């Protein structure tokens, strides 16, 4: 059940949950309850961020990681949307593709990382491959579910108004699928971040995952925390960006603007 919350109450609650986590962090670290090695204080994490900035890796690594996520994920999106629509609208395509995809999507991407290293080395291409493998198969299924779930009477109405098959596809099926596809995009780009960090933890010369792994070797917990916080903030920003984009792209959606 969804209760209606005033906008103010909603943001106050959001803010207070963040404040609570921050306060706990302050209390646990500054009181000495948890050793600095395990839980660095907010001050030292801030300092670590400053140092990394001076070394020039903060912005560079963040941009490297972002670039890998975006390119790898966009490749998956570009291929999976048409395929998903095809699977949803053609029985033949469904028969050919679905079993393969169902099989592939249960292969843990992490288990394929060694193979990608063998095929693509440790450069950007390998990161793209990991992200692609992690999001592509799921995206095809998500898109085909969205397309198959379009209200059937909408298509029938178009047919009775004189639309041809192709016109129904282009003028009705595609726009009607857009809200669901936007949702799928928002969800999968979140996964893309996870897979990227996994790939960078295993082998990379740059990027946030690489930075976290390197810091562990030097027991630089403050830098590990700094890396985690940046990844978290990027995730949050991506999510907000997508919610905004959804409102811009499908302002007509019944649900649009429902949630902040």
């Amino acid at each position, binding site marked *: 059940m969804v209760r209606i919350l005033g906008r103010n109450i909603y943001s106050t609650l959001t803010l207070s949950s963040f404040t609570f986590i921050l306060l706990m962090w302050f209390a646990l670290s500054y009181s000495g309850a948890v050793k600095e090695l395990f839980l660095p204080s907010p001050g030292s994490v801030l300092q670590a961020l400053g140092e990394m900035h001076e070394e020039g890796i903060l912005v560079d690594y963040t941009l490297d990681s972002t670039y890998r996520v975006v390119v790898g994920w966009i490749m998956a999106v570009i291929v999976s949307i048409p395929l998903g629509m095809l699977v949803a609208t053609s029985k033949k395509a469904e028969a050919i593709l679905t079993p393969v995809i169902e099989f592939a999507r249960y292969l843990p991407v992490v288990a394929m990382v060694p193979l990608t290293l063998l095929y693509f080395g440790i450069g950007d291409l390998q990161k793209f491959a990991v992200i692609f493998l992690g999001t592509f198969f799921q995206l095809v299924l998500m898109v085909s579910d969205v397309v198959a779930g379009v*209200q059937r*009477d*909408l298509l*029938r*109405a*178009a*047919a*009775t*108004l*004189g*639309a041809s098959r192709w*016109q129904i596809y282009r*003028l*009705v099926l595609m*726009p*009607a699928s*857009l809200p669901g596809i936007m949702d799928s995009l928002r969800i999968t780009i979140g996964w893309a971040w996870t897979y990227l960090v996994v790939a960078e933890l295993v082998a990379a010369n740059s990027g946030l995952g690489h930075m976290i792994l390197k810091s562990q070797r030097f027991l630089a917990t403050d830098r590990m925390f700094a890396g985690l916080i940046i990844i978290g903030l990027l995730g949050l920003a991506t999510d907000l960006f997508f919610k905004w984009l959804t409102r811009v792209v*499908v302002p*007509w*959606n*019944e649900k649009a603007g429902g949630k902040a």
Partner: protein
Amino acid sequence: MNKLVLNGVGKTFGTGGKAVEALSDINLCIAENELAVIVGPSGCGKSTLLNIVAGLEQADSGVITMNNRNIEGPGADRGVVFQSYTLFPWLTVQQNVEFGLKIKGINAKERQEIARHYINLVGLGGFEGALPKALSGGMKQRVAIARALANKPEMLLMDEPFGALDAQTRLIMQELLLSVWEKERTTILFITHDIDEAVLLADNVYVMSRRPGRIRCRIQVPIPRPRDHRSTVSPEFSAVKKEIMEMLWEESRTAANER
């Protein structure tokens, strides 16, 4: 003159043990400009019949002709208003009504004029720019009627178009449909299981038997036109209503006895 003729139309869904015979030997003649209403017990195949006429479903047997031409597949010459709301949510009221005209390749200016006319006809002048999500159920169905009529169809097919509306809105919509029909005189095939609605609207009420559906009889409605909600209190109204109710009651009683 006969507009729509169905001759020996049958339809079975599925095969083998799970086969459901929805329609069996349907014979029906609907005249030019007639407002024909089909009533029948729930699940007797009314929607199947309408979908076959719309070309959305294919009959297994029989012949269906409109203007003496066989019906093959859906087409702009038969406008359909569904029970569910089928406005395209990404288009404004105006764009929804222009949808079929655009497909026909009518130029923008003419499209706009035709759409305006029908939007006004259903009483939605001023809402041209509104998105469907801003409209009430009754308003959505008005737009759906305007959208179907804007195509200038030979026939308008309506499958319980007011079924999802509350009683008050329903009555308003019935009067609206009557007034639209008085002006346009499009041949209408209207399906309902609301007997009051059937009698108020129809020139002829066709009563269907329980599944597999057949046309049991045709009942003429002698209530003078133009009609409005006051027509429902006339003695003719009660008489016709009683006749239909008895017919339907008999159907459901035999159905119950056989179970």
